[in-house]
């Protein structure tokens, strides 16, 4: 998965009006609330063939920067 694909995945999961980039987070994307984060997690799980569900740090990773950091550490992106 590339970073651009990740941005699109998060935008679709949140059904966000704004573009998602590396600076996006729950602080600046209104749709990224606790319910929206559940959609991000299920979308990540689908896109990584289940690998994301074993990454418990994702549970509170409510920014693109954090998600990228976690996925890069696991060589998923």
């Amino acid at each position, binding site marked *: 998965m590339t970073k651009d694909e990740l941005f699109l995945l998060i935008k679709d999961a949140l059904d966000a009006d704004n573009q998602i980039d590396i600076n996006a987070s729950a602080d600046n994307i209104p749709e990224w609330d*606790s*319910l929206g*984060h*559940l*959609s991000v*997690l*299920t979308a990540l*799980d*689908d896109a990584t063939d*289940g690998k*994301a*569900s*074993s*990454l*418990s740090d*994702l*549970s*509170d990773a409510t920014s693109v920067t954090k998600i990228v950091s976690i996925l890069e550490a696991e060589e998923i992106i």
Partner: protein
Amino acid sequence: MNISIDGIGYQLASKKETSTDLKNDNPEWDMDLIVSKTGVETRYVSETNETALSLCIAAAKKLDFNSHDIGACIFVSQSPDYMLPTSACIAQEELGLNRDVAAFDINLGCSGFIYALSVAKGILTDIEKSKALLLCGDTYSKFINKNDRTCRPVFSDAGSAVLLSKSESKNTGPFNFGTDGRGYDKLIVRNRASKVESKFNDFLHMNGAEVLLFTMANVPSGVKALLKKANLESEDIDYFLFHQASAIVLDNIQRKLNIPDEKFPRNSKDIGNTVSATIPILMKDLEDEGRLEKGQKLLLFGFGVGYSYGGCILEY
């Protein structure tokens, strides 16, 4: 020896709560968004005088059985009437069961029905009496803050009762079970039992993201392991009956296991998540709709608080 299900009854709590009720208490909530994620439109909330035990007793009274045949009464709940005594002892008296009955509680939530089925099967093997009563109920609403957007839209209060019999013809099992205590504090009620943790309140707390990750990581793989253990393929199962957690959880499980809609029934839209009672309630609703017939092969799977999960194959 195996067991068969002879009857199922359930009792929902008396107060029906709609999205409008939740919105009235919490004007800032976007109920359309919440319903789209949870799948729950209405839920049932217990009145002060209603408890998990009283709801289960009401459910059991809907069943047709001779109390002399009952050798075990198992009550599964995390909202008992008392710290002690065991609620099942009270059920024994209130249901007029004989005194030579094994009556005890199991403290489990969403996986509890499966565990109790396995325990009941074991007990029925060891006793002369032919039947057991399995009561599953909870009243989580008594622990929920009315402004909690994670818990209140999802959980619902109900009691169920399942009448089990010894059977030579029906197959029950195999079972599989799992526990991950690292998640003990992800779905928890503190300060209502022996341990005092003064920095926390005594409401139900759920970390929805953590619980979702646990579910996604363990349930699909657990189902696959159970099918393998039973030497069955997915196509051999007539219905997959999962704990009715919430829509977002069930959608993920269904997608990962590629189960068609007709084999993946749901009823949480109108009832909500009734914890250990969801699976028996779902079975009863299917039976009442004429969709569940004797002899069908079912895969049951419960999961959640603990973390804990359990699954089994059951010939209805």
